[in-house]
């Protein structure tokens, strides 16, 4: 009797002190997200290995990159992530209109990233800095191109989130899909957070 009472009291204290732990999105999605992070981790390592073979060439080449555009794109993606995480909070608190506007803001950031990337690629090609020029530019175009592909998928995901944000009542499954989509967009931000210093600052 006493043990039952004690357990229930201890259990009650625990549940009120700490919120229940929760997997953001569908658990299976995390296999994809971690897989992507590991694949990019291998690419980052490969880039560092190639850099070690010609450090002066990589340092000289990185100084020809558009640092301002790289910095602006980093700040743009960070801001888009803030909009997305705030939109998820708005959806949970049934502030549908606010959630939609926040997702529109995130979409605008995504499109701004793509626009700046196009400007940067165009400038580099006009300057004669193509993938054929040297190992640095080969890896620069491969890594940023793969990331840009993720941005395109992320933009489609944000549009899907926008369609869900307007619905009055989301089921548990749909909410998990919304959270998973948000996590994918944060992954796009996360990968660029490593790519920016690796390409523009460190190499």
């Amino acid at each position, binding site marked *: 009797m006493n043990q039952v009472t004690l357990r229930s009291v201890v259990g009650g204290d625990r549940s009120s002190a700490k919120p229940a732990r929760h997997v953001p999105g569908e658990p299976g999605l995390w296999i994809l997200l971690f897989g992507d992070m590991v694949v990019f981790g291998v690419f980052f390592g490969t880039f560092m290995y190639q850099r070690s073979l010609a450090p002066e060439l990589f340092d000289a080449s990185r100084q020809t990159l558009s640092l301002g555009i790289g910095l602006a794109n980093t700040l743009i993606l960070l801001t888009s992530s803030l909009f997305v995480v705030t939109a998820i909070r708005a959806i949970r608190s049934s502030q549908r209109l606010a959630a939609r506007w926040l997702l529109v803001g995130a979409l605008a950031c995504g499109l701004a990233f793509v626009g700046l990337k196009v400007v940067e690629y165009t400038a580099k090609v006009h300057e004669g800095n193509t993938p054929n020029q040297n190992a640095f530019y080969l890896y620069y175009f491969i890594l940023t191109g793969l990331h840009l592909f993720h941005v395109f998928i992320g933009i489609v995901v944000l549009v899907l989130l926008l369609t869900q944000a307007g619905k009055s009542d989301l089921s548990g499954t749909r909410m998990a899909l919304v959270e998973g989509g948000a996590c994918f967009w944060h992954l796009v931000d996360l990968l660029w957070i490593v790519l920016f*210093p690796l390409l523009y600052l460190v190499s």
Partner: protein
Amino acid sequence: MTLSLFRARSTVVWVVLVVATLVSWAVGSEHGTGSAIAVVVLGVAVFKVRYVGLDFMELRQAPLLLRGMFECYCVVLWCVLAGMYLWL
């Protein structure tokens, strides 16, 4: 209504991440090859990755296994990149 949504930990994290980005850019844009500054810049990047995971992806409240895997990824990423920069 929207402004009240920004009164949250994630907004504070965003400010910290923006400041960290600007600091990295300020100290990292001009340095020679083999500089220790590069290791610091990589460390700041992994610090930012960790906070994106914990506060934007909401892994801070995730089951410990999932959170632990992410924390391990951050540690391994920094060790590998900084190690390759310094010793290759």
